[in-house]
């Protein structure tokens, strides 16, 4: 076994060095290429983020300003033929009186409020404008005549008076004035007639139409007939109820399960099974949770369709694994010395967990909770399967009322026929949704840094 060749002599060493040198340029080129590829991937990924936000912001921000028509509305007694509201007679039951009031309001709704709108517009438009009634009414959103009626219901003394009112311009005027629809399109492809377009321009020029912050987006509920009046209030409340359900259920249950699994569970098959099961649940597609909700909550327990409570339950089940996994991670991070110190002082296991370990992990649990809630806030697919995509034109008063949610509202709006208008309004809804999520995350970061500093 002594057949090993003699050691490296100088010439062999020189030859090796020459060979290493020969490859150097190529290898350094390879290095640069590889590094360049990495950089390119980063730049592309960052580019996507930039394009994404630019698209949403550039489309959505303009729709936070909305054209409003400032006119003087005359509550014309010639139009309002039954101005006297009913009065509750002595001994009349509440139900009876309510039926009577509703009938009065229905009768009022049957009146031609458009006449009042039209008259107000005609007073405001430049002299000599020629336009027929049908065309002139396309300038103002259809919801506005109802608004005049509601003003009157609230205050019947308006009869015969002239009041300054701000009427929302119609969605088509909005698109036209903002240039969201091509101004050079031929007449047949325009949504407004030529006289109406001219009128909108003229009113904008004489200051009757001005841009105003679009409170409607926040204050109003969804509307199909009056796109310019469509808002997020209903969807917002729906989302709020669901988030409350998620916070009230997912957080305590999630933290409790994490504590059990991490601190109490015996090392057994069953515990292993629960653990594997939770990891899997975290990766189950959200739409499957929707199917679960449809089959169990709706079809078996007969809970109401479209209710935020059911949506909240589905989202709770979906969020639970996230919170359990994060809480377990936090519990694992607590140093064993703290546990031993607590046990050494004679604390029971439960006392150790609740008095010593849990407080330390509080910041992480809080962060996990907020991230889980933010994730639930943006979820859409499972909600479609439990009927939360229904058109709901009221703000839900309880978690059992019909409602929709912010991301579902985005889904509903993007499919609206009035594309020119709704592309912008959907982007605005997205900005609101993303804004909420950013606020949630910012709160999470803020609380975490504060709590960690104190700890």
């Amino acid at each position, binding site marked *: 076994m002594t057949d*090993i060749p003699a*050691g490296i002599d100088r010439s062999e060493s020189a030859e*090796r060095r020459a060979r290493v040198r020969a490859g150097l340029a190529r290898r350094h080129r390879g290095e640069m290429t590889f590094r360049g590829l990495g950089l390119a991937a980063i730049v592309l990924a960052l580019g996507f983020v930039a394009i994404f936000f630019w698209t949403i912001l550039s489309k959505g921000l303009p729709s936070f300003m909305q054209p409003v028509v400032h006119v003087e509305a005359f509550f014309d007694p010639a139009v309002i033929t039954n101005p006297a509201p009913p009065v509750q007679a002595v001994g009349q039951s509440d139900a009876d009186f309510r039926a009577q009031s509703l009938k009065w309001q229905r009768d009022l709704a049957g009146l031609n409020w458009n006449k009042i709108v039209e008259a107000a517009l005609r007073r405001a438009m430049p002299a000599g404008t020629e336009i027929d009634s049908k065309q002139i009414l396309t300038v103002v959103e259809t919801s506005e005549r109802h608004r005049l009626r509601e003003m009157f219901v609230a205050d019947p003394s308006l009869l015969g008076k002239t009041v300054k009112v701000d009427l929302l311009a119609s969605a088509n005027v909005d698109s036209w004035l903002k240039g969201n629809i091509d101004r050079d399109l031929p007449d047949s492809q325009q949504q407004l007639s030529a006289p109406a377009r001219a009128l909108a321009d003229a009113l904008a020029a004489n200051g009757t139409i001005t841009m105003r912050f679009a409170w409607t987006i926040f204050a109003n509920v969804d509307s199909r007939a009056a796109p310019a009046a469509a808002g997020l209030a209903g969807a917002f409340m729906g989302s709020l109820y669901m988030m409350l359900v998620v916070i009230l259920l997912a957080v305590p249950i999630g933290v409790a399960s994490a504590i059990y699994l991490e601190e109490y569970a015996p090392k057994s098959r069953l515990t292993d099974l629960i653990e594997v099961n939770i990891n899997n649940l975290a990766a189950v597609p959200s739409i499957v949770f929707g199917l679960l909700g449809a089959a169990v909550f709706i079809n078996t327990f007969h809970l109401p369709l479209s209710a935020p409570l059911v949506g909240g339950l589905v989202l709770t089940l979906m969020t639970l694994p996230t919170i359990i996994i994060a809480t377990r991670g936090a519990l694992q991070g607590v140093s064993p010395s703290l546990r031993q110190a607590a046990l050494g002082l004679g604390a029971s296991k439960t006392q150790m967990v609740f008095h010593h370990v849990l407080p330390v992990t509080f910041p992480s649990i809080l962060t996990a909770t907020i991230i889980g809630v933010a994730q639930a806030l943006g979820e859409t697919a499972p909600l479609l399967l439990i009927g939360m995509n229904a058109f709901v034109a009221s703000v839900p008063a309880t978690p059992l009322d019909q409602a929709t949610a912010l991301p579902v509202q985005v889904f509903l709006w993007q499919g609206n026929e009035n594309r020119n208008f709704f592309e912008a309004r959907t982007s605005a809804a997205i900005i609101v949704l993303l804004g909420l999520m950013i606020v949630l995350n910012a709160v999470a970061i803020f609380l975490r840094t504060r709590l960690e500093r104190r700890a």
Partner: protein
Amino acid sequence: MLAGKVKMTQVSDTAPTTPLAQRPIRVSASDVTVHYGAKQALFGVSIDIPDRAVTSFIGPSGCGKSTFLRCINRMNDTIEGCRVGGSITLDGEDVYSPALDVVELRARVGMVFQKPNPFPKSIYENVAYGPKIHGLARSKADLDEIVVTSLRKAGLFEEVKDRLHEPGTGLSGGQQQRLCIARAIAVGPEVILMDEPCSALDPIATAVIEELIDELRANYTIIIVTHSMQQAARVSQKTAFFHLGKLIEEGRTEDIFTNPTKKQTQDYITGRIG
């Protein structure tokens, strides 16, 4: 016994018999300083490393001996915020000169680490890694030869010849460390740096590695960092003692251990500091 097997693979040529002082100098450091961020880890170290001999760096932990070792093949480059001052030359070439390619430098100065760190590849691939990246082999047969030779020189071939294509991580700790030595030899370095190569091994594996180091000095200039004074005494011809980032004393190993001139060195080798 493992030791017996290694004996059989005795290298044919023997260590040069010229006295240490007359050997050519391979590595020469003058006034080397190292900062990690604001903290200074090494203060003005100057030393010459002789050809084909084992030089050991000793000293208590945190004394800067490993830091200095890692300056020689510029491994400190990979650490964020590390600055090296002074000069180190390899065969008269400045290691830190911008003209020098660090890739080429490391091909000439091999390194063996504290913990055996074989790649998660087969034994063969572990040894072939260096020659492959540097393009040293012209053919598959060439590569095979380099792998076998390197494993032989590291005294590992007999133990693994039947399982060259099994993972290197499946070997015992001592075998893994010899695999790492074989991996370093395969590139054909002139200098081999060893950073406490036996600290993670049991006494028997340590003995095998020490014997191997003794054999390798016939062909390579070896620098070994160790916290074991006995090991330094056993394997090295020259010893340098570091303390608190300074090189306190250097000289022939016998002199350092029998006749130290500095008080700190005396204290250290008699166990009063460390």
